[in-house]
């Protein structure tokens, strides 16, 4: 990347060299380090997904043995969740943008920021070691007693890897929280913060409160396997359901850790493409906090069929449905922002609309699963698979790609081919629906998850799904080519190519090492596109 032309003191400028990058404390360079690493892990996770879809092309389990298939879906989940989705938007876009958006020179703790990347890499290497020393076949959920007593795969190694990676997430969250509290520029009040920052703040709260619990939980699993301590072993009187409680106490909020940043990205994009202030700014801001809060109280909906008491189930069911309120607030407000907005048909709009469509379907099917009676039928079926892919892939990944495109000129100083970007967004949207919509039907018809063979009558829908995965793959590969191409041949990006509001668009592309040439002072609300009609909040 060093041959990108840049202004004298651009963060991409000197010092060059691997050492200068690997020991950098600049949040922007660390974001690039994360970008490269998570892209690699996305490719790895996608390979595992390809293995799954190819097996499911035919009803017979003829491509892989059932053991190999178990490892494929486990590793797909572990890699995509812990090494791609959780760090994706926060560690790449958040790292790069959050300090600039609030007018700071860096995150509060630059060295801890670098440390978090090294911890991430260490955890990733240990987890990948597990892949080559027996694999992992427990599912990404590590359910006991299978994971502690029965599995002959490298559960301990993988658990230690996930444990270590968790601290990377914790440190990122900690850094963001302190940065938002203590590093805002003069005049940057809480209610002038871009909504992306609010979303990052809410995500960070979940990271610091949830991640330690999964860390100790997988540590207990590792200790149970490795040191023969018994925590969840029924033969000692231990309770495997306790594991599920502890696991989902993190892992359900983790869903919001994955989707809240995406919502933040979409808020920015919606305002920029509509040239309007986000409708109901404070509602959108507080709905992020509401999702973060309620998100901690719903983990029990993963235990509807795990011997949980029916009364606990009822409470969890109601609380789960409550999440729909702040989610709907956001969706309606985004739509209302676009309504009568001066919508510019850049590629950004395509990602936004794709996100809105897929996230809405994902959210509404979540209500099906929150209803206890329905859930007993749909539990552990492909309906669940389709639902969470609509949220995590349709929602988060679409938003991540949208955000990556939107801020790409800022990050690299180069413009990409907008037509190809639109093509990519459309391909992803079509491919995604083709892949996962049939899975709703399959799940409803009773096809269970995690089997490598299935009855013949499910084949047509599975073929459609695999074909869709092919389209999706093309949609994901396209950006890899034209974005890389833009680094070398792309037109130089102006400071504000989209005519958007926000401090990040006031600095050169790519930004200088210390972000701002002079200390910024903020004297207007966020998204002040129509100063005559500004809405004051807070």
């Amino acid at each position, binding site marked *: 990347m060093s041959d990108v032309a840049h202004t004298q003191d651009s963060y991409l400028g000197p010092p060059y060299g691997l050492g200068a990058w690997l020991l950098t404390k600049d949040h922007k360079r660390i974001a690039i380090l994360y970008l490269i690493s998570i892209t690699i892990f996305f490719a790895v996770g996608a390979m595992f997904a390809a293995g799954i879809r190819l097996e499911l092309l035919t009803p017979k389990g003829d491509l892989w043995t059932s053991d190999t298939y178990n490892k494929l879906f486990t590793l797909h989940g572990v890699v995509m969740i812990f090494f791609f989705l959780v760090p994706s938007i926060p560690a790449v876009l958040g790292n790069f943008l959050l300090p600039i958006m609030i007018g700071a020179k860096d995150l509060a703790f630059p060295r801890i920021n670098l440390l978090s990347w090294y911890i991430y890499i260490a955890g990733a290497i240990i987890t990948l070691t597990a892949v080559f020393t027996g694999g992992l076949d427990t599912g990404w959920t590590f359910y006991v007693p299978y994971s502690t007593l029965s599995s002959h795969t490298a559960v301990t190694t993988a658990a230690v890897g996930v444990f270590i990676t968790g601290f990377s997430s*914790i440190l990122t969250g900690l850094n963001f929280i*302190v940065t938002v509290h203590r590093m805002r520029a003069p005049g940057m009040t809480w209610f002038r913060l871009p909504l992306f920052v609010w979303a990052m703040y809410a995500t960070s709260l979940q990271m610091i409160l949830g991640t330690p619990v999964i860390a100790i939980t997988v540590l207990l699993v590792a200790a149970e396997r490795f040191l023969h301590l018994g925590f969840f072993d029924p033969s000692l009187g231990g309770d495997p359901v306790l594991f599920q409680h502890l696991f989902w106490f993190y892992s359900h909020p983790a869903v919001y850790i994955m989707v809240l940043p995406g919502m933040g990205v979409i808020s920015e994009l919606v305002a920029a493409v509509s040239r309007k202030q986000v409708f109901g700014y404070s509602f959108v801001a507080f709905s992020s906090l509401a999702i973060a809060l309620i998100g901690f109280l719903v983990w029990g909906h993963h235990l509807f069929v795990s011997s949980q008491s029916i009364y606990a189930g009822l409470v969890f069911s109601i609380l789960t449905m409550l999440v729909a309120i702040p989610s709907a607030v956001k969706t309606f407000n985004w739509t209302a922002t676009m309504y009568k907005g001066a919508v510019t048909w850049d590629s950004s709009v395509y990602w936004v609309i794709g996100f809105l469509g897929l996230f809405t379907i994902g959210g509404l099917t979540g209500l099906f699963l929150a209803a206890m009676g329905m859930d007993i039928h749909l539990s552990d079926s492909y309906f669940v698979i389709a639902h969470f892919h609509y949220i995590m892939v349709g929602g988060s990944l679409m938003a991540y790609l949208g955000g990556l495109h939107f801020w790409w000129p800022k990050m690299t100083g180069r413009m990409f081919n907008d037509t190809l970007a639109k093509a990519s967004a459309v391909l992803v949207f079509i491919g995604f629906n083709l892949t996962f919509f049939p899975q709703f039907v399959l799940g409803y018809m009773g096809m269970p998850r995690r089997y490598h063979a299935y009855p013949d009558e499910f084949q047509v829908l599975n073929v459609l799904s695999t074909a869709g995965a092919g389209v999706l793959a093309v949609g994901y590969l396209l950006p890899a080519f034209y974005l890389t191409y833009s680094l070398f041949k792309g037109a130089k990006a102006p400071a504000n190519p989209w005519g958007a509001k926000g401090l990040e668009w006031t600095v050169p592309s790519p930004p200088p090492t*210390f972000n701002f040439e002079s200390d910024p002072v903020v004297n207007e609300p966020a998204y002040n596109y129509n100063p005559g009609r500004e809405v004051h909040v807070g």
Partner: protein
Amino acid sequence: MASSSTPLETGAQGHAHNPNLQHHFYSMSQQLEASTLGMWVFLVTEIMFFGGMFMAYIVYRITYPEAWVLGSHHLNVGLGALNTGVLICSSLTMALAVRSAQVSSRKGQIVNLILTIVFGATFLVVKFFEYKEKFEHHLVPGPHFDMTLPDAGQQQLFFSLYFMLTGVHAAHMIVGIGLMLVILTMAIRGRFSSEYYTPVEISGLYWHFVDIVWIFLFPLLYLLGAHLAAHGG
């Protein structure tokens, strides 16, 4: 905290330049507030981390009160009480070390930090002998656990939690002592004064937190047997 060697000093208007001020902060007070908040947030994550184990403890204690009484009776209350005292003393010396830094007393910092390290090490030595005793009495969970005990499986569960809780706590003590050695080295070099004492202060917060965890562990593990036996669970 490493001093910055950046040419950019625009943020330091109105403040005498302090070499300990990192380039991305406007002032020393902003830097202190950020670091302190950072440590508090970290301690929140630590509470959640221990919280997972305390949750397991609560669930099993309610389910198996008899086994918990039996298991608790195997623990050495005398040594536990001794360690509690040792840690409370270490918290006092830690607080005095922070105070010494705030009043720019280098000697006070060095003496109090050394005392803190000595108390911390004493705790670990006592803990080592406690573990050794459990090992000799076949109370370490796993294949060597004494299965002739009443409610052996459930007692094994108690000892699993005992070793996990105290083990993770001891690991935090070791990290804390490492941290204190770093702070001590910096104190000997005269890095801290009333102008700049952030590292001493936030390391102190960590140290007190680790002590407080023990203040919870001691009654929950050691004194519980006597309590439950006296009040019938």
